[in-house]
């Protein structure tokens, strides 16, 4: 048990060190922007993770709240939701990051370095945006219902069925796009990395065509689809069940985060508790080994790619159904899927790790957006994030350096035993 705790501590200590190093090095850039690094970082973290009124690092934990009758009271900051909490915004961003990072992880764990999350997400989003109004339209037409006066019973059912159908469609679209890369890899040994890069471009172009021609809804400057029907909308918490909780104010955080967490749990179960997940992990460990043991590796790879695509499609669907409510031109070019790849790599393909990294990354992104309000260039945020990632990826190097120091400080153990056993003939 102690060993377990040590391991957990060790795996957390390193990202922390990388973050601190990243901040120290980016201070140089902050200084060239004629700003005080400490102030800048406090601003970054407060805008990323703090409650309203957050000014210092300490305020991330404890904050003085003015009382109605004058004077102040110190409260635990993460629970202080006056005027909305930044953590709600972080979770809104993290939803997409978690799903795309899961998508990358499942592909990586099958030995497929697929970075097709972007294209799969775009097609998923497009499918959800289209189905979000097309399905209700069909239902109204078939049932001869007036959209302005839907019977309450039917409306309730539609609120459940329509989003589910949209999500299913989005997942199918993403899965199909990912399957192409998997199929080409398994049958023709086409490099999946190159293949998914190209498929991403194709998906973005397809989306660009659809949005500008067949699915364009109006003559707005920016091409966009029709807004999805209310029955397809995944109502954010601040408009629905938690509308009286101020913590959620301003964030379009909704049921999507729960779906993402359930997906994380389900994927973990699939990978570590089912024979199908075992097949896929073995296929990755060594393709020769899998073949040697009679494990159907190709099937495992295809299965992983389908799951990967479906998760990216799901991410796209949630972004449309819960956040944007329509597909706007430029969404496809946002590169939402690539951040997921990054998160998966930084988390070293660990599912619990990925949840933490996704939230941290989302917070940094969130914080850097508002840096300009502190008279700092907006690009500084990107520089800081890049340095933290750079140091995180240098883990092997740092461990080797620490290992050297460590071995000098600590007396060596005996080497592990060469076989000393009394070799007897096996009883099998």
């Amino acid at each position, binding site marked *: 048990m102690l060993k377990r705790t040590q391991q957990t501590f060790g795996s957390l200590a390193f990202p922390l060190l990388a973050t601190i190093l990243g901040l120290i090095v980016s201070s140089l850039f902050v200084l060239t922007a004629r700003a005080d690094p400490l102030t800048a970082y406090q601003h970054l973290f407060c805008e990323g993770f703090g409650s309203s009124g957050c000014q210092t690092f300490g305020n991330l934990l404890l904050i003085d709240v003015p009382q109605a009758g004058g004077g102040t009271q110190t409260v635990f900051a993460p629970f202080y939701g006056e005027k909305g909490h930044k953590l709600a915004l972080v979770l809104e961003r993290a939803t997409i990051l978690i799903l795309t990072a899961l998508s990358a992880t499942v592909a990586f764990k099958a030995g497929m370095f697929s970075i097709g999350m972007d294209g799969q997400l775009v097609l998923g989003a497009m499918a959800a945006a289209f189905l979000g109004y097309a399905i209700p339209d069909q239902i109204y037409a078939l049932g001869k219902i007036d959209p302005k006066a839907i019977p309450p019973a039917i409306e309730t059912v539609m609120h459940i069925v329509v989003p589910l159908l949209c999500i299913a469609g989005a997942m199918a679209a993403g899965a199909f796009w990912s399957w192409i890369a998997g199929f080409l890899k398994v049958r023709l040994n086409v490099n999946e990395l190159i293949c998914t890069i190209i498929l991403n471009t194709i998906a973005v172009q397809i989306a660009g065509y659809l949005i500008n021609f067949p699915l364009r809804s109006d003559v707005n400057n920016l091409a966009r689809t029709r807004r999805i029907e209310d029955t397809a909308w995944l109502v954010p918490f601040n408009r629905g069940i938690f509308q009286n909780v101020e913590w959620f104010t301003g964030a379009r955080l909704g049921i999507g985060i729960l779906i993402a967490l359930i997906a994380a749990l389900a994927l973990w179960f699939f990978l*570590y*508790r*089912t*024979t*199908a*997940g*075992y*097949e896929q*992990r*073995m296929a990755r*460990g*060594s393709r*020769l*080994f899998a*073949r*040697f*043991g*009679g*494990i*159907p590796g190709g099937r495992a790879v295809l299965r992983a790619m389908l799951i990967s695509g479906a998760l990216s499609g799901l991410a796209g669907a949630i972004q449309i159904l819960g956040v944007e409510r329509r597909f706007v031109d430029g969404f496809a070019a946002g590169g939402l899927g690539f951040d997921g790849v990054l998160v998966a790599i930084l988390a070293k393909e660990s599912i619990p790790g990925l949840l933490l990294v996704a939230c941290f990354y989302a917070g940094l992104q969130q914080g850097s957006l508002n840096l300009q309000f502190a008279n700092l260039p907006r690009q500084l945020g990107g520089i800081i994030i890049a340095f933290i990632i750079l140091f995180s990826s240098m883990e092997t190097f740092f461990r*080797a350096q620490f*290992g*050297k120091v*460590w*071995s000098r400080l600590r007396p*060596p*153990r*005996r*080497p*592990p*035993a*060469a*076989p*000393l*056993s*009394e*070799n*007897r*003939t*096996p*009883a*099998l």
Partner: protein
Amino acid sequence: MPHAVELQHIRKFFPSTGVLASDDVSLSIEPGEVHALVGENGAGKTTLMNILYGLLAPDTGQILIHGQAAHITHPNDAIRLGIGMVHQHFKLVPSFSIAQNIMLGIEPNRAGFVNGRTEAEAVRKLAAGFGLPVDPHARTGSVSVGMQQRVEILKALQRDARILILDEPTAVLTPQEVRELYTVVRNLAAAGRAVVLITHKLIEVKDVADRVSVMRRGRMIGTHPVAEVSIRAMANMMVGREVLLQVAKGEAAPGEVVLRAENLLVAGAGGVPAVFGVSFTVRAGEILGLAGVSGNGQTELVEALAGLRPVDAGTITLFGKDITASIVRDRREAGMAHIPEDRLVMGLNLQTTLDENVVATHYQKPPFSARGIFQFKPMRRLAQQIIDAFSIRAARVGEPIRMLSGGNLQKIVLGRELEGRPKFVIANQPTRGLDVGSIEFVHKTLIAQRDSGVAVLLVSVELEEIFALSDRIAVMFEGRIMGLLDARDATETEIGLLMAGSSLEREAV
């Protein structure tokens, strides 16, 4: 006269694995001697020599070359000091000519232009001087392995190596080539050079070395004149206990034909045929040994039998049932087990745990899987069973296997493959790279399998192993079976000739 090499109190600790590979090791090598360095896998022989050659830096200790303290931080330093090393895996450019390889990096040139003729002439002179004839113009990739090794040796000599380190030099050679190498090594020593021979074949030590140093678990056990120690004594020093060099084996009682291969034609890498019309049978309760220098089609043949490589023509039948086109899983269902040549890549998945490795061949069946959900209890029970039955002391249920020694890893492979009572076992190089203690264990296990009525196909490049285990011996050369002999009256010379491609007058069995 000063020692050619003196290593004093060398200590080397690998922090990443926590292994103390060299613990206060001292060793001196005289000019004009062949000094054998023996020890089990992981005893620290190669580490020690890599330190001498500048590939690794020692934590403490010092090195004296010809009596002078030397600071070797890079192989270039070692070469300058007259140390040459021939690695187990040759480091030659296959597309270069032999002369180009030997002169690589020290080409005689004029203003940067290399003169091919002077180069070839220099090599010819060098080769003649040492009695190691080579064709300077031959393409290195197309000459035999023995010749490539000779090129490596010449390469070291061209750089005027006074101290020559040979790492497992005989692993890839035919018996005849081994004899030639011995002569070369003796001549070099006679000329006053020091030769260090890293090996774990004790017969070799007896044949060629003057003194032998034994290492065990990072420590130097002792240095002795070879004439004063027996092979048995060396083996005991290496392992630290009594070992059986020759496993006791009773008469075989062959039963029905289990596996029949007929006129197999199998393509190797790049579609070039590697196995030409090979036919043989393996009976229940016998071990058929397949001898041959590595790279003569054995790998392709085994892969075809195991279902990893398509068969172009011919048939394979197991218990009379045609399995020529069956997938691996079906073959395994039918009772085939396979101990692969490369246990690190093919036999095991080192990135995962013991449990997940032992179920790799039957994970999809109950009790390990219930409706697609993995069952951990039966899996752990099986892992524990294998640990107990094969006394794999260092392994723990549920823990990674990455750190285990080669012998223990091979025991895991054996445990998994022999679990579930196979009827036909392919053992491809089952003791390659293992130490004496583990070899003894693997041999005992294979004989126990034979005695319980299993048909065993043993593929090995080690003649001792073939002779120790086989009931019948087939010899492969360039994709063909050159002869099939009864092990009771086959001689090493006969097998050696067949391995080199000559045919015998008599055809037994």
